[in-house]
């Protein structure tokens, strides 16, 4: 939790937590996983009514952006989503809604934003390529001009909910710069290739573009000015992803603390054994670090602070690495029960491992930080 939240934000947090505990607790993910079914669109619409994606949508298009602090508020929601390992396209919907709200034409805003705010329209964010060291920068799809229109080719990697999505925001690199396009699902030349993912609450796919011809009306913003748009999208995505990761660690750490306090061995609670205590103390310190870094990232992206680009990479590296490290050790402390399907902790670990790798591994963000530092 950001220690500087105001009263309204604390209320948002509380409301979100109660909604999720009631309508989509961790057991919901277990049910999805056991039944092998996909996204629950019903719960996504319900959630949207609470104004989640609407945080980024102007009032004129059915949102509440003017009275919200978009990224900070969305980070509050994301943290709660992490606590229950929520299964739904929050991150990509927010990123795409924000992108359209900031750079879209009137037609684009009117056409897409109301549906995104209400949860009727699902958006997929086709951003990075598929390289093993990638994820932290746009790539994978190329752009060539063709008369007044454009041709898109290539592969966008690890796209969340691409199969279910009604709308794709595609980033493509051309000779004259980066361009972004809004395309409806099923647009000719696009194929979605589903992936096997370790995170059971996140359906990912590669999206292939084979000579996809689009007109200028599909362009979001200008071809030349899109670099800043793209950087903003990455920043929003990372701020929300890190907030979610914090929720994931926080909850797993919380029930691990309960466990070591109540579980007895050798006549003592196992939490009284010094080796466990010291490991937990170290985890607590790194968890505080994750909270500090994630909160700062959300705040600096929201305010457009000069360190926003740095802040998101710092947060991603730290949260990514320590989420996995801490939760792995939490599993260890659970003993046998921790490696059974019946215990929830593996859902937390799956989300942590997945979040560490998506939108740039820690190493990818270390490289990005070097560039930002002028090295």
């Amino acid at each position, binding site marked *: 939790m950001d220690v500087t939240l105001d009263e309204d934000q604390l209320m948002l947090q509380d409301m979100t937590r109660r909604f999720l505990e009631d309508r989509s607790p961790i057991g919901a993910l277990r049910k999805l996983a056991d039944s092998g079914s996909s996204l629950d669109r019903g719960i996504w619409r319900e959630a949207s009514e609470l104004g989640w994606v609407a945080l980024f949508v102007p009032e004129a298009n059915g949102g509440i952006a003017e009275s919200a602090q978009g990224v900070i508020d969305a980070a509050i929601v994301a943290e709660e989503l992490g606590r229950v390992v929520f299964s739904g396209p929050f991150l990509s919907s927010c990123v795409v809604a924000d992108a359209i709200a900031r750079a879209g034409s009137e037609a684009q805003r009117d056409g897409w934003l109301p549906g995104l705010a209400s949860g009727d329209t699902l958006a997929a964010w086709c951003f990075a390529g598929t390289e093993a060291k990638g994820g932290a920068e746009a790539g994978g799809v190329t752009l060539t001009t063709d008369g007044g229109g454009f041709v898109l080719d290539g592969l966008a990697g690890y796209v969340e909910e691409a199969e279910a999505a009604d709308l794709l925001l595609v980033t493509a690199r051309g000779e004259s710069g980066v361009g972004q396009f809004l395309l409806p699902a099923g647009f000719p030349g696009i194929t979605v290739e589903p992936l096997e993912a370790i995170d059971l609450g996140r359906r990912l796919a590669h999206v292939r573009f084979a000579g996809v011809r689009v007109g200028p009306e599909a362009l979001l913003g200008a071809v030349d000015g899109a670099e800043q748009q793209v950087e903003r999208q990455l920043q929003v995505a990372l701020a929300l992803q890190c907030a979610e990761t914090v929720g994931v660690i926080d909850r797993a750490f919380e029930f691990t603390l309960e466990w070591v306090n109540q579980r007895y*061995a050798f006549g*003592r609670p196992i939490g009284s054994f010094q080796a466990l205590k010291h490991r937990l103390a170290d985890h607590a310190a790194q968890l505080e670090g994750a909270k500090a870094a994630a909160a700062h990232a959300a705040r600096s992206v929201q305010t457009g602070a000069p360190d926003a680009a740095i802040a998101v990479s710092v947060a991603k590296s730290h949260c990514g690495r320590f989420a996995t490290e801490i939760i792995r050790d939490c599993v260890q402390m659970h003993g046998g029960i921790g490696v059974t399907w019946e215990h929830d902790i593996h859902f937390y670990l799956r989300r942590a491992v997945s979040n*560490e790798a998506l939108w740039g591994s820690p190493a990818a963000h270390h490289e990005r930080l070097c560039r930002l530092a002028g090295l």
Partner: protein
Amino acid sequence: MENTAEAPTGPRRTSEHLDTEEQRAFRLKARDYMAGRLPPRIPGEPANAFEQVELVEKDRQIQRLLWDGGLAGITVPRDYGGLGLDKRFEDIFHEEAEPYRLAWHFGNAFNIVLPVLLAHGTEAQKKKYIPGMLSGAQMWCQLLSEPSGGSDLAGLLTRAEKRGDGWVLNGSKVWTSGGHVSDMGLCLARTDPTVRKHAGLTMFLVNMHAPGMTINPIRLVRGGSDFCQEFLDDVAVPDEDRVGEVNDGWTVAQTQLNAERAGMAKGWHAGLRPAAVAEHLTLPQSYVKLARQLGRANDPAARELVGEAFVIDAVYNLTGRRIAAGTRNGRLPPTAGMVSSLLVARTDARRTALLSALAGPAGVARPAGSVGREIGMERVTTHRIGGGTLEMQLNLVSERHLGLPREPGFDRDVPFNQIRTNAAKG
């Protein structure tokens, strides 16, 4: 415990030139008998996958074949159905058996139950049960850990009460390897809760098909379910199936645990490990291939990860060999063997971290059939819990190997029923 049959590396070696005449005769007999009868060793075929019941059935048949051919229980006394030969004959057998699958799912029976019975069983028990193992007729498991706690074995809660001539057992056991396919189990239970915890335990041989025994496979995160949980609800055990004295079960359990450790140290699945140890280090081409598949062959940051992976694997192998050699020739104390388990844990954890960093997003999702996701799954599923948690291993190494002082115990010298346990809750 290795889980798959690896293809032996390097040229097959034999000590044939050392054979006496008798040994030579035995070697030829074994060679002739197995040829054409035993199924071949298939690289990658599981050695330890009790959820694959047809594989377990296959191992029963293999053991039966060996029994029929007079090749079972080579070092076991003749009185109990064995051949009564010395260790050299066993080595000869394994040299000849290298091309074949052996009855690897009988590891519990041969590594654990057999030594326990030989050390503590009555003459009647040995005559009754050992031939059944050797012939493949009875599969065994050990009923040790309980849901209330695995590390603190002496704190177990399963009760055995004397009723008439026999005993009645009530409680629950868990992490029983192969419980659902076993015929018999070696079971430690509490017979006197009013004395200190180590002093009130007794060991029993329990029929897994007995009324009152419910066996549920446990679904693991890594897939599969070769472990089970058992519920014992008034399970009757005759007094002749008690091993050792009443309330002296801890002594029997020590033999059992030592046998388990010795089995792991020498190679759980007889015939599997020795052939897999190469004399010279090699650098696994699997990592080279992975780096290429991921398109990172020329990336210095990726090469740093691959290089470290080479190192941890090599050091793990070399250390295993050093400890095996040193404990054999007495240059290292027997406790050095405990160090290996620690290194496995640290090596596994580090390897998965390195490979995850190498794979990036490919480590968490992949198109069906392509490379990557299994690396992230390793991170989700690789933990050190079975066979003694990491914490217990760290305690063991520090106390028994390094000789550091034990922590003062709070529960060692008080009656068991005055100790707080996980059963005491709500």
